[in-house]
């Protein structure tokens, strides 16, 4: 008889779609933007790169706007989660969640129970939210109102548009993606076709406070009966 396993819904469809569109647009923007800025391409190819850079910018802008407008509950739940920092969130930084020790197999690290996202993910999430806002504002200013600002602000807008996303892209390439692959259950949950379930034991290990909260709510629903009025977690 096949073994059954308990799964918990971590990534709802709007978040999955938004994450995918963000991934697609961000990497297109990075390759095309840095490709021209740092001279990886030249001549008419540079013009093509800028053209695709603008298209990817539209993808990022309207996917983000769509997420805020149409998936408002997902968006507000995400923002609430990212900006909720309790004592354990701050303590996570003392050993970076134990990842260096775990990856380098240097013994069992001290664990600080986290909510749905750990401190590192919250930090990246906040930085990415800010980065998306910054590139949208600076990018469209350069596209629709080029040279409209005083000279020093034109330079600042361009430099911020280049260097802030460069930092974020490096962080994603060197930290976010490797750790996402390291925590492969979460990776699969985000990218699977269909609802973004992760194994319950994975959630209890990595997001114990959140898993406990969800289980308690589900238990309350089960014992009270479905009255359709309990708020669903985004």
């Amino acid at each position: 008889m096949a073994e059954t396993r308990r799964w918990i819904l971590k990534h709802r469809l709007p978040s999955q779609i938004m994450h995918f569109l963000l991934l697609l647009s961000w990497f297109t923007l990075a390759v095309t933007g840095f490709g021209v800025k740092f001279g990886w391409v030249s001549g008419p190819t540079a013009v093509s790169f800028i053209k695709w850079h603008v298209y990817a910018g539209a993808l990022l802008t309207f996917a983000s706007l769509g997420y805020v407008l149409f998936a408002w509950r997902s968006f507000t739940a995400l923002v609430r989660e990212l900006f909720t920092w309790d004592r354990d969130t701050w303590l996570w930084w003392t050993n970076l969640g134990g990842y260096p020790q775990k990856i380098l197999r240097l013994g069992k690290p001290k664990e600080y129970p986290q909510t749905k996202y750990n401190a590192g993910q919250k930090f990246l999430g906040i930085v990415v939210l800010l980065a998306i806002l910054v590139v949208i504002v600076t990018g469209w200013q350069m596209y629709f109102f080029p040279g409209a600002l005083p000279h020093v602000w034109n330079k600042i807008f361009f430099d911020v548009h280049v260097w802030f996303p460069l930092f974020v892209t490096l962080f994603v390439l060197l930290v976010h993606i490797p750790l996402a692959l390291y925590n492969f259950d979460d990776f699969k949950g985000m990218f699977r076709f269909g609802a973004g379930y992760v194994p319950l034991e994975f959630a209890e290990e990595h997001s114990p406070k959140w898993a406990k909260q969800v289980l308690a709510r589900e238990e309350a629903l089960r014992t009270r009966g479905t009255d359709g009025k309990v708020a669903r977690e985004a």
Partner: protein
Amino acid sequence: MLIDTSLCIGCKACQVACKEWNDLPMEEHIGFSGDSYDNTLRLTATTWRHMKFIEQFDENHNGRWLFLSDSCKHCTDAACMDVCPTGAIVRTEFGSVYVQEDVCIGCGTCERACPFGVIHVDAKKRVAQKCTLCYDRLQHGMQPACAQVCPTDAIQFGDVDELRKHARDRVAQLQARGEDKARVYGEEDIAGGLNSFYILLDEPKVYGLPEKVSVPNREGELPVLGVVGAVAAGLVGLAALSDARSDAPTIKEEGE
């Protein structure tokens, strides 16, 4: 502007006039170039007109010199203008491509995009620099300095359509005289047409010029942006709608 290389004698009066009128400094660290009589080697932020010498001699010293007075071609499809993030590069009322130094932030994107290696960022001034087609002279009814000074009228300034007609007639004349490879360089297949174009006596690659230059058209981007945006927002919207109607349980049990 038409540069008829069949009339050019390589005197470099154009190169000197450009430097003089625009108050451009000499190139440092070139010395003896070792490349025929070339003393500038390439277009730079401080060399806006570069005289190229192409020697075609056999071992018996029979052959010829080809000369090319190289400069900004003021392309119809100007790649530098297409990529400039601040709108510093504009097209003037004379059809030339001009860098507004007070707007330019020296990002260097134009330098990467130019298919001819014309435009460069000045390391000291931190702005992009290239031939202006003597915009200041044109505004006062004068010719560009290079055209004014050319002793053989190899550089001719005037209405582009009239110059193109004249160029085609001249090429026919040259071909009738046995110059089989004579051609107009800078018709529409080169960056949509060059406003500063050439009569060459050999293939473009001999002069170090690209055979064809096709710059992607950036007109009509706005409707595409609208479609992309609508699709992106629509996808997220549909996902939100689907999620709202979904009865997927928060906790489920399922086989491995």
